[in-house]
């Protein structure tokens, strides 16, 4: 088989594979028992696309020597409280040295009607203290086990608990002492008395309950707050954002449309200016887009947000930049009288340093954003970084191989260089 036929076959194989992977990425496939999910569904969407609530809390006392340890405890408390509210998809991350950021995505099954309700629930200290008649603490929330919710005889919601051994003993001693007297036991929640009662009978089994005029929801929340533990330090809320789900949907569909139109226009521009070389660049661009989506779906911790989409679309424009630089270089080589094959080799070789250096500077900027940015900015930096690396690979490796195949099929230089050349 001659070189030309071989190259045609290779080219057909590559294009068919590209289409197949593209189809897989969009639609997924099921063969027998093996199901490949569409790539697009594996990409995590950020809050501005799904809708949701994000909040940032800052430690009040920044001179705390055990700040890091306490922040980790705070994050664990947040996590438990979020989980018990059913927000299992929510994320809790530390930001800088003294901040914690939470993000709660919403969907059909999880709605957040009022962002303030959830954020104030999260940050509450929830310190429950039982005090004796003189106001001395007997035991606290941390002594309680098996915390739950029940309805008492009068039909009120109460939080029930079982005490650990030491606390149970204290409780038994004091309640036996108070029976028949007018001495009272009080329950304090965050230093505020929520109920006071006389003792009707001694409680020796360590079982007790918290009354305080709760409804089902508030009793449940208090129970989960007690279970999650007391907040070790005070946190102040410094930023809250909430976005409705419909707004996010609009933003996503608009940006995807912009992305598709942008890609088509860039592809048309490349063919119009660089002819067959433009076709090479376009195939490489399709490959690049697949590569980026694959990376977005697989690299851990990547979230796609609105600025993130902008980063990807922007990187499409940048991805063909390297090809423009290479093709212009090849044209120069052809004009200088070299054969198309030599011109292609030289073009890739000599354009490499400029492409490499310019990619490194963009990577530097993206890395700085990644390090210092937070939230959506960080996601923009990640997608930009993925975009640059993928475009470098597709422009330098993929398009080089493709161009070789094309030249094997037809090596008339006028097909590969833009007009205006002497060749």
């Amino acid at each position, binding site marked *: 088989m001659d070189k030309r036929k071989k190259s045609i076959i290779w080219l057909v194989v590559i294009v068919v594979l590209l289409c197949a992977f593209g189809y897989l990425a969009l639609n997924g496939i099921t063969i027998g028992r093996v199901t490949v999910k569409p790539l697009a569904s594996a990409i995590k969407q950020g809050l501005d696309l799904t809708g949701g609530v994000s909040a*940032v809390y*800052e430690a009040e006392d920044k001179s705390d020597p055990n700040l890091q340890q306490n922040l980790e405890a705070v994050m664990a408390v947040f996590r438990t409280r979020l989980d018990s509210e059913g927000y299992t998809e929510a994320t809790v991350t530390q930001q800088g040295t003294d901040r914690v950021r939470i993000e709660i995505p919403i969907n059909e099954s999880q709605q957040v009607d009022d*962002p*303030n309700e959830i*954020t104030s629930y999260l940050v509450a200290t929830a310190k429950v203290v039982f005090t004796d008649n003189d106001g001395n603490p007997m035991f606290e929330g941390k002594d309680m086990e098996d915390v739950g919710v029940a309805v008492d005889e009068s039909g009120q919601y109460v939080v029930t608990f079982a005490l650990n051994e030491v606390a149970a003993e204290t409780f038994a001693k004091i309640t036996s002492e108070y029976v028949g007297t007018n001495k009272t036991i009080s329950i304090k929640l965050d230093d505020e008395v929520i109920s006071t009662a006389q003792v009707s009978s001694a409680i020796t089994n360590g079982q007790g309950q918290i009354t305080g005029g709760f409804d089902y929801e508030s009793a449940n929340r208090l129970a989960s707050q007690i279970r999650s533990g007391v907040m070790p330090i005070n946190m*102040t*809320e*410094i*930023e809250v*954002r*909430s*976005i*409705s789900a*419909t*707004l996010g949907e*609009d*933003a996503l569909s*608009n*940006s995807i*449309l*912009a*992305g598709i*139109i*942008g890609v088509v226009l*860039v592809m048309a*521009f*490349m063919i119009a*200016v660089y002819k067959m070389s433009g076709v090479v660049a376009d195939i490489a661009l399709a490959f690049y887009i697949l590569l980026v989506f694959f990376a977005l779906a697989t690299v851990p911790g990547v979230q796609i947000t*609105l*600025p993130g*989409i*902008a*980063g990807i*679309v*922007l990187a499409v*424009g*940048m991805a*063909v*930049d390297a090809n*423009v*630089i290479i093709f*212009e270089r090849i044209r120069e080589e052809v004009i200088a009288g070299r054969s198309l094959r030599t011109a292609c080799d030289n073009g890739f070789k000599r354009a490499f*340093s*400029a492409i490499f*250096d*310019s990619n490194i*500077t*963009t990577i*530097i*900027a*993206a890395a*700085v*954003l990644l390090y*210092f*940015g937070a939230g*959506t*900015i960080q996601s*923009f930096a990640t997608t*930009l970084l993925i975009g640059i690396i993928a475009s470098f690979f597709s422009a330098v490796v993929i398009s080089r191989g493709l161009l070789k195949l094309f030249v094997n099929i037809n090596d008339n230089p006028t097909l590969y260089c*833009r007009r205006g050349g002497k060749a």
Partner: protein
Amino acid sequence: MKFSSNFKYASLLSALIILAGIIAAIVSGVNFGVDFTGGTLLTLDMGGDFDTADVSSALETAGINDASVIKSGSTGSSQNQAVIRMKTFADDETENRVRQQIIDSLSDKYEEVEITTVDRVGAVASADLIRSAVLCIVIASALILIYIWIRFELMSGIAAVVMLMHDVAIMISLTIILRVQINSPFIAAVLTIIGYSINNTIVIFDRIRENGKFGQKKHQVLTEELVDMSITETLSRTINTSITTLITIVTLYVLGVDSIKEFSLPIIIGLVAGTYSSIFMAAPFWGLLSRKKKAGTK
């Protein structure tokens, strides 16, 4: 083309734009968003066309007099969203109460009214944002300077970073003049331009590096000629790479929602400024620096 001898005119144009930006900032102020000023931003979907006066009176009923209301919308001509900007409330209860009051008084006339976004940014968060923005820009520029110094030489690094500062200054100036709101994505836009607009400059410097080596052996080319020659030779790729990137970002601007527009417009400005400075200023400025340095060492 005589790029080197026209350097002063190119710089004059840029200086005028930056001056206009400074004047605009002094006269009409900078349109900072809540990310920078702190405050609460409430977006209402009114379910149809509406009168901003209705929203303002609903705010007054709720006891808020210093809020601003603007119309906005993601879908072309229909502007169904009211963006209310106000100071952050003392506590959550007050905010909830006020929000409920606004919705209640509006729902008489606009049945489908609902809150789509709530952004509340504290003063601490906004002060931090400014600090980290400046830090980001300084660190990125310093690292790029060092990289180019290593790969080329010091004068190229200085020239390239001065041009980056120029591009950022033009971006900020035009953003102020056009009254585009500056929020945290603006910082990402600036950093993108810092990383990207230097690409064109590097292509030209790379050509100078190549032509310079060649020139030393064959015929001594003066820096001014070397610069002009290198810019001319790389002109078509500088323009074409900028066009492809502009195509995608302009599409985003045209079709995107408000927050995307707010982000893509500064990038468009920065791209144009970057292309302009790469062609007309970067290499001539490098030539100027190199000649000064040579004269100094003699």
